[in-house]
């Protein structure tokens, strides 16, 4: 190859990349370098060069396909909708189990009060049973800690997906533009609901219809 006399477009691109101090190189940047290499090679190809050129072109196409496939996964939806919803659901689990556990323990304490006035044999049985109830209730603390770990993992995933969204912003926007508008839904009411779209329970506090709202439908 005799590319010494040509303006070094690839060298310039590589130089620009070296100057970046972000610690990461974007897919767009890599793609630009590959295109630069191909353009440089296009004019002066030996057999060996042609082979390299074909390899590079294949690599470039692979990157383009991968970019499109990742964009079609809509990582923006994952961060805007799925992860926050999952975190809220997990928080609701912690709150609900804590509430239920406190009620169970209050009830067990009430039984203990009765045991104090029962005959000796019955009191022993009731005390043993309530002790086991109290011990079993410690599951709530463990469950809460495990769920906190899962929420932390979700936050980590969210950060990584953010990086994907930054790298594939243009492709994601293109995919979003191609998605059909949900015209069937008018005034917030879906005229052709599917089973899946109707099944949203259990709802978080404040979401969905209350028992009162549902009762009104039967009045």
């Amino acid at each position, binding site marked *: 190859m005799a590319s010494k006399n040509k303006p070094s477009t690839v060298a310039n691109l590589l130089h620009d990349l070296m100057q970046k101090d972000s610690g990461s190189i974007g897919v767009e940047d890599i793609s630009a370098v590959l295109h630069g290499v191909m353009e440089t090679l296009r004019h002066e190809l030996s057999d060996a060069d042609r082979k390299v050129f074909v390899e590079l072109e294949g690599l470039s196409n692979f990157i383009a396909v991968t970019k499109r496939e990742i964009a079609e996964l809509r990582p923006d939806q994952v961060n805007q909708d799925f992860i926050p919803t999952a975190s809220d659901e997990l928080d609701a689990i912690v709150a609900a189990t*804590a509430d239920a*556990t*406190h009620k169970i*323990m209050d009830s067990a304490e009430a039984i203990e009060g009765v045991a104090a006035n029962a005959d000796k044999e019955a009191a022993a049985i009731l*005390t043993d049973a*309530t*002790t086991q109830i*109290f*011990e079993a*209730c*410690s*599951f*709530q*603390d*463990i469950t*809460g*800690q495990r769920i906190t770990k899962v929420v932390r993992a979700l936050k980590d995933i969210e950060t990584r997906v953010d990086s994907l969204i930054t790298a594939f912003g243009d492709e994601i926007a293109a995919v979003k533009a191609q998605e059909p508008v949900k015209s069937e839904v008018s005034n917030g009411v879906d005229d052709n609901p599917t089973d899946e779209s109707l099944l949203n329970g259990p709802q978080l506090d404040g979401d969905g219809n209350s028992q009162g709202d549902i009762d009104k439908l039967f009045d």
Partner: protein
Amino acid sequence: MKTCLIVDDSKVIRIVARKILQELDFETAEAADGSDALQAVQAQMPDAILLDWNMPVMNGIDFLRALRQLPGGDAPRVLFCTTENDIDHIRMAMEEGANEYIMKPFDSEIMVAKLSQVGLI
């Protein structure tokens, strides 16, 4: 009657521990974090401390370090009671002056065994 301070940010764990300890004839007091526990031991040093690791404000290991610096702070038997179970955590707790280590969730059987090992029952 022996005394035990239960230090845990979980109300459920404090109640469970209190029930078990009262069955074992311990007089109990409770604290929701290391800072509250530090105030409690300065008012009255207990015979035993059941100590959680992860707590807001002041965690269990920082409380233990502060406790062992106090006058008479070497007296209480400290039983770490936590979900942290890797060797480094356990070694650190022992180096800072913990006497025993109980894995959560616990029951009265393990509590009896550990209190027995530290000579309190």
